[in-house]
């Protein structure tokens, strides 16, 4: 039995020791927004936030999240109220096939929480662990930049 905070709510769940966090999320908790791509930590489709930092959930053993904070794509917004990043991704056409999107959004969210005014280079570095085979990344970077510029205006 492990206890941790998932998308802001404390949960307790039984999980075998050899399960990864990804498998726990998808197969036990039915949170299928987090995708399994390569399964070996190279593609970033399974990126979730662990204590606010992006990690590949396919490389994290489930028992390791005991007492920690996990955030998945299901926690950042929903159809009725999208996260500003999600809105921006739609606006800029940063979603094509959509398989990498949840992972990219988690990396981007973590970046903006730690650094609300990143440079273009910092954005690129932050999403460098997320492979996208459709967009060529430009739209993704522009979508994140638009949110950054919006945040800048708000703080001025």
């Amino acid at each position, binding site marked *: 039995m492990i206890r941790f905070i998932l998308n802001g709510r404390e949960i307790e769940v039984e999980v*075998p*020791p*050899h*399960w*990864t966090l990804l*498998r726990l999320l998808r197969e036990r908790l039915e949170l299928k927004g987090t995708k399994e791509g390569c*399964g*070996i*930590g*190279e593609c*970033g489709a399974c*990126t979730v936030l*662990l204590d606010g*930092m*992006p*990690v*590949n959930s*396919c*490389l*994290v*053993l489930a*028992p*390791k999240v005991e007492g920690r904070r996990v955030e998945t794509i299901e926690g950042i917004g929903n159809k009725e109220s999208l996260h500003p990043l999600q809105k921006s991704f739609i606006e800029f056409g940063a979603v094509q096939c959509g398989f990498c999107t949840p992972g990219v959004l988690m*990396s981007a969210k973590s970046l903006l929480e730690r650094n609300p005014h990143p440079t273009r280079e910092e954005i690129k*570095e*932050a999403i*460098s*662990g997320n492979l996208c085979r459709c967009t060529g990344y430009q739209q993704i970077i522009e979508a994140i930049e638009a949110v950054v510029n919006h945040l800048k205006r708000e703080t001025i």
Partner: protein
Amino acid sequence: MNLPQFEFIQPRSVEETCDLLKKHGEEATLLAGGTALIVYLRYRLKKPKVVIGLKGLTGLNYLSQQKEGLTIGSMVTLETLERSPMIFHGYPPLNSAIQQIAVPPVRNQATLGGNICLENRCIFYNQSEFWRKTQGPCLRLGGGVCYAVEKGKRCQAVYSGDLAPLLIALNAKVKILSAQRERTLPLADFFTGRGEKPNILNQDELLTEIQIPLTEPGVGYAYEKLRVREGMEFPMAGVAVRIKRGENGTIEQIKIVLGAVGTAPIEVTKASDLLVGQKFDDKILEEFSNQAMEAARPVGNQIMNSEYRRKMVGVLTKRALRRAWAMTEKRESS
């Protein structure tokens, strides 16, 4: 592909860990950040009965600046090192080398100890069980054939850690602990040069600390990495150099260490023979570069051609030396 079943134990102290290692012997494997081990489990390259998770060893999560230099606990994550002002200001080339490892989500988990203890890699070995079935077991997996080197009789899997070459160039030491004893040795002596067993750690031992001595005035150092793309990539070749400026702009000391072009980091020992009051100029750069290329031992077991990797060792050596030399100039004037 799911992971095989195993028992997962998370000890709270180094002593407890050593006892567990002693008790379970060959059946146990250590899990630090997990970014390498989980892949080995998934590929069925390792089938431990017991996995010992080290995250609870908070006593190995420290970074401190002493009179003699930096001491770093082996469980410090690469991300922590990357963000450390102590390293950013005190050891800038180390900071830049860390940033070149994998990608942020991996660095958030991966540890310094784990990076140093990486298993050697080979394109005929680091593959899924299904892929490997098509060719039968290689030398390292108990078969009689090496797929990388024709008629090869020893495993030539490549040591692909990015940090060890630079840390060796900086004369770093490592502390190793077991239930019975503690030993500290130069990182250069940590590696065996055997593809299937790259370091000297015994089954019951744990790497606990990395010690990096202070760099003297007049010293510059750098790391250059060859890779296919800018992120998420093991080195196809790596060159670390440390150079000391003497009187009148001569080179007083030099150390060149190659990574990812052999079964262990390779020190280019002949490089220092070339010095005797040598000026830093294009001619001596060419000679160092040739010595480095000669010392490299790339074989055809990576996605890049081995002769290309050897030539690039020469190029990277020059680049690294120029950067390191520029650093000695900056330091002298400050």
